[in-house]
């Protein structure tokens, strides 16, 4: 089956991102395809590449990036949610004339249409709410 996930929770504050990650690993282990993970609302904070947790803790944003690299998962950050929260890639930083960007390269900035598209393209769309 083809799965997509929607993650509404930021890393560390709520368990949503962690649950979604374990669910993603489990579905991939069962031989399913993970088409897309859509990060919405505070979930966009999962897309930072500047997270530096203590050494004995999990780096949640980096863990998503590794998973995407290994299984070719489309990690989409909602652009409207991200810009107002200060999560930007280099293109957006340049567009708004800001001095830096902070998004991981494994993540793609795109619109809410990608969530609808994920629902159409996938057999299952599972939401992990905060």
């Amino acid at each position, binding site marked *: 089956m083809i799965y997509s996930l929607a993650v509404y929770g930021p890393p560390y504050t709520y368990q949503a991102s962690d*649950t979604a990650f374990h669910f993603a690993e489990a579905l991939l282990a069962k031989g399913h395809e993970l088409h897309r993970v859509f990060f919405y609302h505070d979930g966009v904070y999962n897309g930072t590449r500047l997270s530096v947790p203590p050494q004995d803790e999990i780096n949640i944003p980096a863990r998503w990036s590794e998973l995407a690299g290994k299984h070719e998962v489309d990690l989409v950050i909602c652009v409207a949610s991200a810009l107002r929260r200060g999560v930007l890639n280099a293109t957006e930083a340049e567009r708004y004339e800001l001095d830096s960007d902070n998004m991981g390269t494994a993540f793609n900035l795109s619109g809410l249409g990608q969530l609808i598209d994920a629902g159409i393209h996938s057999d299952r769309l*599972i*939401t992990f709410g905060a």
Partner: protein
Amino acid sequence: MILHTVNKSPFSQNTLRSCLRVVSNEDSVVLIEDGVYAALDDSSCSELIKNALQRVAVYSLLPDLKARGIEQRIIHGIQTIDYNDFVSLTEKHARVQSWF
């Protein structure tokens, strides 16, 4: 057939109560994250799940029960599952409704 996930404690929010109001007989409920507190036996919220078990299957995510140290104190009739089982449940149910 809908699989309902609930991730909020019934001691702090009405998420589970809202879910159970609309759950139909062929549906199933999965308690995840703080939602697993609803699985506690002999609590002020136990009746919610005990009544639900009369008509729907109720599952609870074992890693989340263990993380909260309550895996030995859950209501009889609740089935404990791991992430692999959680995925299997989403295969069997055509839709997943997340309550949060």
